C-alpha cells in the first residue's frame, strides 16, 4: 500500500537518495546532506508544533509499505520570505505611445518583487522514477492539499507553487544565460543549487534591482518567460486542475512560472469533507470512484487512495487501510474525489 506520512529523522538516507536522483531544476530538494538534515529537523519541529511560522515546513514522504521503501516526497512551507526575502519577477507591460507621432509600442517588463512574501508554498515534490504510475504522483502532490484543507487556519490565504523553467539537457537555461549570467558569473545549475540550500536571497541580491525591459533579452530568453520545463508539464496540469493559475510571476533565475491560488479555492480544500470512518472489508460498490483520504492529525497524519462511494456522513475503509491511516471506526477522516470531475 502507498501511504503518505510526515517525514522523520529515519527517512534522511532515503531523502538524500531521492535528492541525488532529481537532476537540475528541483531547487527545493538539493542533494546536500547537511541542508537536507536541517530541512528534516525543521519538518519534525513543524509537525511537533515547536517551529516558528517563518521556519515551518511540512515535509511528507510516500512510503511503499509492502516494500518498506520511501519512494517520494512533497512539502508545504507555511509562509515563504519571512526569514530571507522571497524574490520573483512580475511580468508587466509598458506602453510608449504618441498619437501625434502615430507611435504605439508595447514593451514587456520584468519587475523584481517580494509580492509573495508570507504566502504558503507547495515545495519539494519528487517521486522515484520507478513509481511514476498508478496515480502515485497525484497521491503525492494532492495529499498535502488535503492536509492544508484539514489545517486551514495554520496557513496563508494564498498558496503558490514554483514550476521549473525551461533548460536544455545540459542544464543551461536560456533566461539565465541572457540575464543572470551577466550579473553573476556562474552556471545556472550552481545558482539553482545555492537557491536550494537557502542562499537564494544572496544570489538575488546580485541580480538587477531596477525594472527590466524584456526586449533587451535574447529572443530565446524572451520565449521562455513564464514557460514550464516539458518534464514539469504534468505537475502544471495537476496544479491547474486544482485551481492554480499563472498570474504573471516568474522565477528570477529560469523564468519558470509561479502558479497561485486562494487556498479556499483549491479544489481539495473547497471540495473535501469530513466523514466518520466506517470499517468494512466489503468490496466497494460498482460506482465507487477514487478518493484521497486522510486522518485529521498533524504529526500522525496519514493519507492514501481508496475506491469509495461515501453516503451521508460515513466513509467506508477496509481494516487494512484504516490501520495504515491510524484510524478506528468512528474517527474523523477527510476525503475528496481524486479527479476534479468526480462529484460526491
Amino acid at each position, binding site marked *: 500500500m502507498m501511504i503518505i506520512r510526515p517525514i522523520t529523522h529515519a527517512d534522511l538516507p532515503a531523502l538524500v537518495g531521492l535528492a541525488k536522483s532529481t537532476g537540475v531544476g528541483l531547487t527545493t530538494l538539493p542533494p546536500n546532506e547537511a541542508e537536507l538534515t536541517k530541512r528534516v529537523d525543521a519538518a519534525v519541529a513543524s509537525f511537533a508544533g515547536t517551529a516558528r511560522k517563518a521556519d515551518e515546513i511540512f515535509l511528507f514522504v510516500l512510503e511503499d509499505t509492502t516494500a518498506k521503501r520511501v519512494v517520494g516526497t512533497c512539502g508545504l512551507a507555511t509562509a515563504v520570505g519571512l526569514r530571507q526575502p522571497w524574490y520573483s519577477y512580475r511580468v508587466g507591460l*509598458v506602453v*510608449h*505611445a*504618441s498619437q501625434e*507621432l502615430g*507611435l504605439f*509600442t508595447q*514593451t514587456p*517588463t520584468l519587475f523584481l518583487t517580494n509580492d509573495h512574501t508570507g504566502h504558503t508554498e507547495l515545495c519539494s515534490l519528487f517521486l522515484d522514477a520507478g513509481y511514476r504510475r498508478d496515480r502515485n504522483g497525484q497521491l503525492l502532490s494532492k495529499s498535502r492539499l488535503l492536509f492544508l484543507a484539514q489545517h486551514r487556519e495554520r496557513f496563508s490565504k494564498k498558496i503558490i507553487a514554483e514550476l521549473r523553467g525551461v533548460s536544455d539537457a545540459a542544464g543551461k537555461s536560456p533566461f539565465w544565460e*541572457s*540575464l543572470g549570467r*551577466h*550579473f*553573476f*558569473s556562474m552556471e545556472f545549475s550552481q545558482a539553482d543549487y*545555492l537557491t536550494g540550500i537557502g*542562499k537564494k536571497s*544572496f*544570489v538575488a*541580491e*546580485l*541580480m*538587477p*534591482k*531596477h*525594472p*527590466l*525591459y524584456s*526586449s*533587451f*533579452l535574447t529572443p530565446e530568453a524572451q520565449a521562455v518567460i513564464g514557460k514550464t520545463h516539458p518534464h514539469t508539464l504534468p505537475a502544471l496540469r495537476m496544479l491547474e486542475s486544482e485551481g492554480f493559475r499563472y498570474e504573471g510571476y516568474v522565477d528570477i533565475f529560469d523564468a519558470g512560472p509561479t502558479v497561485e491560488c486562494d487556498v479556499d479555492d483549491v479544489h481539495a480544500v473547497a471540495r473535501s469533507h469530513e466523514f466518520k470512518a466506517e470499517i468494512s472489508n466489503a468490496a466497494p460498490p460498482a460506482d465507487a470512484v477514487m478518493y484521497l483520504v486522510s486522518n485529521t492529525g498533524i504529526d500522525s497524519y496519514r493519507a492514501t487512495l481508496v475506491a469509495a462511494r461515501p453516503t451521508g456522513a460515513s466513509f467506508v475503509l477496509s481494516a487494512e487501510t484504516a490501520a495504515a491511516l491510524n484510524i478506528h471506526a468512528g474517527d474523523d477522516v477527510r476525503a475528496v474525489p481524486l479527479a476534479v470531475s468526480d462529484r460526491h
Partner: protein
Amino acid sequence: MKTDRVLILRPCRMSDLPSVERIAGASAVGITSLPPDREKLYDKIRNSTHSLAAEVDVNGEEQYFFVLEDVATGEIVGTSGIVASAGFHDRFYSYRNEIIVHASQELGVSNKIHSLHLCHDLTGLSLLTSFYIDPAYVKTQWPQLLSRARMLFIAEHPERFADKLAAENPGVCDDSGHSPFWDAVGRRFFNMAYPQAEQLSGGRSKTFIAELMPQYPIYVPLLPADAKLAIGQLNPVAELPFSILLEEGLEADTYIDIFDGGPTVEARMSAVRSIAGSKRLRVKRAASAIGTKQSYLIANTATEEFRATIALLSLDDASGDGRLSIPPALADRLEVADGDDVRVTPL
C-alpha cells in the same frame, strides 16, 4: 591650407542666412543644432539677434549664434553657438553613466554593473552648440577662435549663463546613418531608424522623443557588443571640436546622448580654461607693443557688436599706464576705441 587669412568671429546676421544654409547642408549628421532647414535657421538667427539685444539678468531662453568671417573676402567659413539654458521651458535629457555594485559577502562576490540612467541633470546648464568649420581651416588656429571665443563671451557676460557648461557630441554611426546605440535602445521603442525618428519629430525638441524613450535604467551588460562600444564613443567627424573642449577642461565621463550614445562633456564655468584664464584689459591704440609677443584670443566686451579674433600681443605693460597696446588695424577689426576694454586669453 589657409594660414595667411585673418578671420573674425561675430554674431550671425540675417544677411548671413544663405551662407549658413550652405554650411548646415555640409555639416555632419548628428549636429542637430544646425539643421539644414531655411526656416529653422532663420529662427535661429532671429533668436540670436534678439538675445544679444536683450538685457539679461538671469539666463533663460536666449540663444547665441556666431559666424567666423574671412575679413578679406567677407566669406563665412564657420559657425558656433551657445544656448543659455539647456532644456529651457522643459527638460534636457541625458543618460548618466552609473556603476551599481552588486555584492554579497556571504557568497564572496562583488560585481560592478555599468548602467545608464535617464536623467535631467543637465537641464539649465549652458550649452555649446552648432560648431562647424570649413574643412579647409581644420588644420589652422581658427577652430580655436571659433570654439573658444564663446568662452570669452561667457566670461564677459556671466549673468547671461549658468555656472556650468556642457556640450553634446555626435556618437558613432555608419555611413547610412545607423547608430548601433539607437538600434539597441531607442529603436526598441520606436521601431524606426534614428534619422527617421528625428524627422518624424519634426520641429519638436528632442524632449518630445525623449519622453517616449525607456524611463527605467538600462543595464549595459544586456546590450549587444556594438551598442556597448558606442557608449560615450565620439563620431570621428567631431574629433576637432571635441578635443578643443577637452583641452578647455570639460569632462566626458558622466553623461551621454540618449539617442546615439555620443559623449556629453561638462564642466563648471570656473574650471573652463579660457574663462578662468581670461583677463579684462583697457586698450591703447598704439602701433606696436614692445616685449615678448604671444598669440591670444582677444574679444571686445560688447554683445550685439561682439567681435573676437586671434592676435600676437604683448601683455607687458611697456608704457606703465596699465593699458594693452594694440595696433589700430586690430582695434578696428574688434571695433574698440582708445580706452575701451577687451578680454584676452592665451591661445
